[in-house]
């Protein structure tokens, strides 16, 4: 009996040591690249700035895309925000943004809200369904003393 138990323990240790490759990730995990956000910024100035404002502050009718934007979208997946943008924006021509432009805009908005950039562009596919929009940065899991044995 000792051997299987030891294997199980090792497996548990391995699972603890390397973060579980879970199905989902968060906007805090670097969901876009800086270059993509730069492309999004250009698109933003062309399509969005006239209503949402130069610093995404909103204008009283068009909502801000910073600040209260975070609690407004908290708990959703990025796919929902992507669909909202692509299907309803810009207000004067909804549905005219290409998928890649929409992803770039989303990257720009994430950057404006201080979510970190990462090594890979945000894609405009089903992978968005796996990225959660969390208001708060998850606490880093510190090894806890007394749990190793």
């Amino acid at each position, binding site marked *: 009996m000792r051997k299987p138990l030891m294997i199980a323990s090792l497996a548990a240790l391995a699972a603890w040591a390397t973060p579980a490759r879970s199905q989902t990730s968060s906007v805090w995990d670097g969901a876009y690249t800086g270059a993509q956000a730069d492309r999004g910024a250009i698109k933003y100035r062309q399509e969005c700035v006239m209503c949402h*404002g*130069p610093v995404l502050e*909103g*204008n*009283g009718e068009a909502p801000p895309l910073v*600040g209260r*934007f975070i*609690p*407004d979208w908290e708990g959703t997946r990025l796919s929902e925000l992507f669909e909202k943008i692509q299907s309803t924006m810009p207000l004067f021509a909804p549905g005219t943004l290409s998928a890649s432009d929409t992803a770039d805009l989303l990257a720009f908005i994430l950057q404006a809200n201080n979510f970190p950039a990462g090594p890979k562009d945000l894609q405009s596919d089903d992978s968005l369904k796996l990225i959660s929009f969390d*208001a708060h940065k998850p606490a880093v899991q510190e090894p806890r003393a007394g749990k190793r044995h």
Partner: protein
Amino acid sequence: MDRRSLLRTSLALGGLAGLGACATTPPPRTAAPGTVGLAVEDIPPKLAPIRAHPDRIFDVRTCIRPFRVKGPNLDTEQIGDTLVVHNYGHGGSGWSLSWGSANVAVQKAMSVAPKKIAVIGCGIVGLTAAIVAQRAGAQVTIYAREFYNRTRSVRANGSWTPDSRICLSEQAGPGFGALWEQMARYSYKTFRFYMGLPGRPIDFADNYRLSDTPIEREDDTLDPAKGTYGSTGKIQQNGEFGQYSDLIRDLTPKPEILPEGSTPFPVKYARRSEVMFFNFGSYGHVLLSEFYGAGGKMEIREFHHPSELATLEEKVVINSPGYAARDLWKDKYMIPVRGQTGWLIPQPEVKYGIYYGGVSMLSKSDGVMVMSLGRGPVKGDLAGVGDANEVEDRAEIEDAVRVIEGLYARMPASAA
């Protein structure tokens, strides 16, 4: 101009108005030759005189503008586990910029998705921040030393003056203009929603600038020889104050030069502009009703040290204490700028404002407001700088009222 020629003009205007009312064909677009040369719709109407007499003064209020040389503080800082978003130091522009500044502060506050927000201060800047935070979905408690109607805000002028002593341009830096424009435009847009309500919380009026000598623009160019705040540690000249109104020139009508004789006033030179202003009583009532109606709470409390903010239940605080920030936060950039208003008994039939001889008067719903702006030894924005004396000076207001009393005394009865 002599009384006779004014009388002639008045009669001519009266005749024209009568023609407009009776004619079956549209009235001519311009006044008849020999009158004034203004488009019909721009000819000043008959104006009820202001009963400017010192014994009609029923209130004198003095305040300190929360002037901050770097412009309003909208930074954030962490006090223990509490996020503090500053929102103070709006100088003579608090009423005007309140909504735009609130929007900036609230978006910073909401970035950490709080359920509850505390607002420190219940002047116009705190109260509007509280309402904007409610609109963003937060439960809000205002902690303040005084209720709204005892704050310095209601001892101010309360007109649309969005760049009145808002900063020193050098200290605020070149980026401030864009932020200022954002706040000014957002505010202006928001005021729209408070028009047309009972008590006219926000109103517009014609303002006549009157003079016996040609009206000249004050010279506010910076003179390097005089020194500046940057070089001496003290504000030295009017040219140091930030002027940004050109950025929003499109929002308001252009001032008009009115030809001599076109107004009922006994002066040679007149210029008319449109002024938007805030009626403190009704506007405050509407805002407080909105705040309480959305579940807001108010607690009278005075803070003595920033660390006390961390003891609040709310972990996100919007800090709008106005001039009190100078002591509470030891903000060395805050400089007091004294201001005073006098109030004559309300005259609802008067629907305009005037500026003459260094005195301004504006008829508001809660009284005819009097300010002595150009009669002291120090002119322009420098007047009152460094003066934290909040004791009323009734003599100054009486002197101002007499100036206007003298103006109306010269006005022929037929002109009113």
